[in-house]
Structure formats: structure tokens, C-alpha cells
């Protein structure tokens, strides 16, 4: 036992040292061939993206990696408000794709991004379990008594956009839970614990047959525009810029449109 104690301490010290090194190593700086129209890029980039982008960005990431051998794209999907806080607290990220302008502004005003570009728009839809136990047919049903309604919490884009829908429809709702991000709302609906949830159109499509989507009338629906930016503190800005360019290109927008996103 005497000998194991320093060994443990050494391991702990090693873990600390590793942690201090951070994850996004491999600086870009590929010199020489970079002068031509397609600069060769290498290394790893970390993309912080809104939960609702999970399916589309995973596909785009694979295409981007195929187009740029030697580049690895790592994703962190979470609520945009959560990601914005992480970035301004110094989390190692190269690209930020937010589900709302507000959370992007948080990042740009703190000096972590110079400018952002809107790339898609998303609208809201009601998701219900396949059997639709509460027989939800429209937004008005969400205000009925006895319904177990799941929403995102108000500081998350899906929560504030859903709140805009209820304001437009002049409805007061009584949700049973305010989840941390849109995928958590969807999970509560998929498990049948919630009778309905207000999520993005794209989430309903991504969930396939696990939920049924009930459209919200155009007159009351609300939307949010997604901006994307390469971050100034990126240690691999060449690859970060290239990824943003790819998302904005025809290839990227084909994937996004196929997943149900609208043009901004």
C-alpha cells in the first residue's frame, strides 16, 4: 500500500497536466501549398452547435471530412445559451452555430467572434407521442387543463421561440417541465411521459416515427434565425473558416434543407 499512494498522486498530476493542455491541439499553419485557391488544411476543429443542428451538422461534418482528408471535426451539441456561456468562459471552440441571434451576440460582444452569418431559419411544431393520447390538433389544445406539456426553458432559443408562438396565439399554457434543451423535450415526448412538446420542425422530422408532428398555423407560428461564426480564439482558424464556408455553400445548404431547415 505504501507504494501505491505516490502512484495515485502521480496519475492525478498527469491527468491535471493533460487537462491543462486542452483538446484542440494541432495548430493549422500548413505553409507552402496554401497560396492556391484551395488551401490545404489539417488538424481538428471543435464545432459548438445548437442541439437542433445535431443531425444536419453530423452529416455536414462527415462530408467536410471527406472533402478535406486530414481534418477531423468534433461536435459539442447543447442549448445555444449553454454553449455561448461555455465559449465566453474560455471553452476551446473553433466554430459556433447558434439557434438564435441573441446567443451569438453574447459571443460577438464578448469579442470571441468578429462577425456572424445567418445560414438557416427554423419554425416551431408540436410533437406528440405516436398515439397522440391527448388528441392534440393545434396550439389551442396546449392550453387545455390536464395536458402534460413539455417546453424548453425560456432562456434557450427553442423556449423563447415557443413563448412567441403562445404570445401570437394569445394563449396561456401551464407546462409540467421546462427542459434544458430541445432534444430533452423531444425525449420526454418520445417516452410518452409528456402529451406534447413544442420543438422545431426539424426535430419532428429527425425523430421519424417516434413522434407525430402537429403543424402550427402560419399566422401564429414563430421562427428563429441561426447565425454561424468562426471564433477569434480558434487555434485552427483556416479549418474553422473552411467549415463555415462549407455550411454556407450549396453542399451544406442541401443537407440543411433536406432536414427541414428554411433559408434565412
Amino acid at each position, binding site marked *: 500500500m505504501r507504494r501505491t*499512494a*505516490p502512484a495515485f*498522486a*502521480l496519475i*492525478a*498530476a498527469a491527468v*491535471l497536466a493533460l487537462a491543462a493542455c486542452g483538446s484542440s491541439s494541432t495548430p493549422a499553419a500548413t505553409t507552402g501549398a496554401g497560396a492556391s485557391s484551395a488551401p490545404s488544411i489539417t488538424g481538428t476543429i471543435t464545432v459548438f452547435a445548437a442541439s437542433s443542428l445535431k443531425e444536419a451538422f453530423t452529416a455536414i461534418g462527415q462530408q467536410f471530412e471527406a472533402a478535406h482528408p486530414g481534418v477531423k471535426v468534433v461536435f459539442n451539441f447543447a*442549448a445555444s*445559451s*449553454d454553449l*455561448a*456561456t461555455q465559449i465566453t468562459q474560455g471553452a476551446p471552440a473553433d466554430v459556433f452555430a447558434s439557434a438564435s441571434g441573441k446567443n451569438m451576440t453574447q459571443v460577438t460582444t464578448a469579442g470571441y467572434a468578429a462577425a456572424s452569418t445567418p445560414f438557416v431559419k427554423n419554425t416551431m411544431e408540436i410533437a406528440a407521442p405516436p398515439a397522440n393520447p391527448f388528441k392534440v390538433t393545434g396550439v389551442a389544445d396546449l392550453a387545455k387543463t390536464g395536458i*402534460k406539456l*413539455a417546453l424548453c*426553458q425560456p*432562456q*434557450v432559443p427553442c423556449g423563447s421561440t415557443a413563448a412567441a408562438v403562445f404570445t401570437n396565439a394569445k394563449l396561456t399554457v401551464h*407546462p*409540467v*417541465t*421546462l*427542459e*434544458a434543451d430541445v432534444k430533452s423535450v423531444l425525449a*420526454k415526448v418520445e*417516452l*410518452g*411521459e409528456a402529451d406534447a412538446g413544442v420543438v422545431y420542425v426539424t426535430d419532428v422530422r429527425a425523430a421519424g416515427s417516434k413522434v407525430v408532428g402537429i403543424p402550427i398555423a402560419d399566422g401564429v407560428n414563430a421562427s428563429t434565425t441561426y447565425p454561424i461564426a468562426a471564433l477569434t480564439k480558434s487555434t485552427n482558424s483556416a479549418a474553422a473558416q473552411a467549415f463555415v464556408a462549407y455550411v454556407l455553400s450549396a453542399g451544406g445548404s442541401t443537407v440543411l434543407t433536406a432536414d427541414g431547415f428554411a433559408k434565412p
Partner: protein
Amino acid sequence: MLAPALVGVAFLVLPLVGLLLRTPWSSMARILVAADVTQALRLSLWTASVATVVSVLLGVPLAWLLARSQFPGIALLRALVTLPLVLPPVVGGVALLLAFGRKGFVGQYLDQWFGITLPFSTAAVIIAETFVAMPFLIVTVEGALRSADQGYDEAAATLGASRMTVFRRVTLPLIAPSLVAGGVLCWARALGEFGATIAFAGNFPGRTQTMPLAVYLALESDPDAAIALSVVLLVVSVIVLVGLRDRWLRASPFR
């Protein structure tokens, strides 16, 4: 030998220093009297206390069973009931949802027969907290029962005391210090419960939003509030630790 030990100390203490350095002391009072904060604090104290009472009522007899009986499979039983000690709490929450949720294999009958649905209710918070915290009490009390001198129990029994009387008048007073220590540990664990709660009970202010959930969710919108709430939980933890230490020192008759 000394250097790695100091690294260890720094590793454990620095985050707490960081918390205290960033604490918005001047606005602390304003943050803590905000309605949603007092609501979360009250809910946390209430649910942790109820979870502790439930844990005592169910956990002490269970600890007694584990310590004093011999039957095949008791080792397996002990492993099963103390599993939540090592299980990631969020896994516990998912498991609770699949058992006691509206579509769970137990929960669907609660809904059909009694019209009771547990998720998203304060009861769900208490269940989640009890699930993760009760094993702390069981382990502590079982240990005490094992080390307590059974001669007193036997003497009382030979003098004609019933099993219940022996337990109430002899065994329980003997293990009282450990019961208190286990209860405090259990309460502290319940107070800090996060993963199982957010998975099983969801998040709604005043109903299921306990302090740890409020801290986590406030970090996104109002970091100062998250820090202030964290300091409150830190203070509670220190009080528990100090109280427990004192109790333990007095508890042992061998020192």
C-alpha cells in the same frame, strides 16, 4: 511524496477558491431573496428532509435485515440495494422513468388504476432523492449494527423483551450516533441530487426545480445567481461536514 500530495490538495481546494473569488458578495442578498431562489431553496430543504425520513423508515429495517440475518443470496441483495451508491445518478433517473414513468412497467398501472402519474411532480423529486441517498444510510447503519455488541440484545431477550422492544429499547440506542451520521449523509446527498432528478422529475420552478437544477440552469442566463446559489450549497455542505465530524468523534466509545 510531498509534492504530489500538495498537487492533490490544490486540485481539491482551488475550485472552491475560484467559487469564492467570483462570488458577487455585494449583490448576494438581492439574489438570494429573489422569489425563484427562495422557492428552489425551500423545495430542496423540504424534499431532502422527506427523502431522509423515508430512507430512515425503509432503510433501517433493511440495514437490520442485512446485518443480522443469514440466508442464501444476502450478498447479492446487499449489492443490489447499495448499487445506487456507485450508479451514475442520471442512469438512476432514466431507470426510475422506465419503472415509475407514465409508460413505465409499474407506473402504467399507477396511472390506470389510481390515476397517479409521478414524473414532473414533487413526489418524483423525493423518489429520485431517496433512490440515490438511501444506500448511504443503509451502509452506515448496517456497519453500526455489525459492530454493536449483540450480547445486550440477547440479555434483553432472555429477560423477556419482545423482538420489537429489544430493537426499540436496546439496539436503536446503541446505534443512534451512526443513525444520525447516516441520516445526515443521506440528507446531504439528497440535497445535492441532480442527475436523477432532472431525468425523472424534469424541471419546473416551485415544483421540481431544486437548488442543484437552479444552479445548473442559472449558469446559462445569470452566472452571478448560479455562483451565489453554489455558495449557499457550499455553506450547507461545510455545516454538515463539521456537524458530522463532531458526531463521529463523540460516537466511538473506543477513543
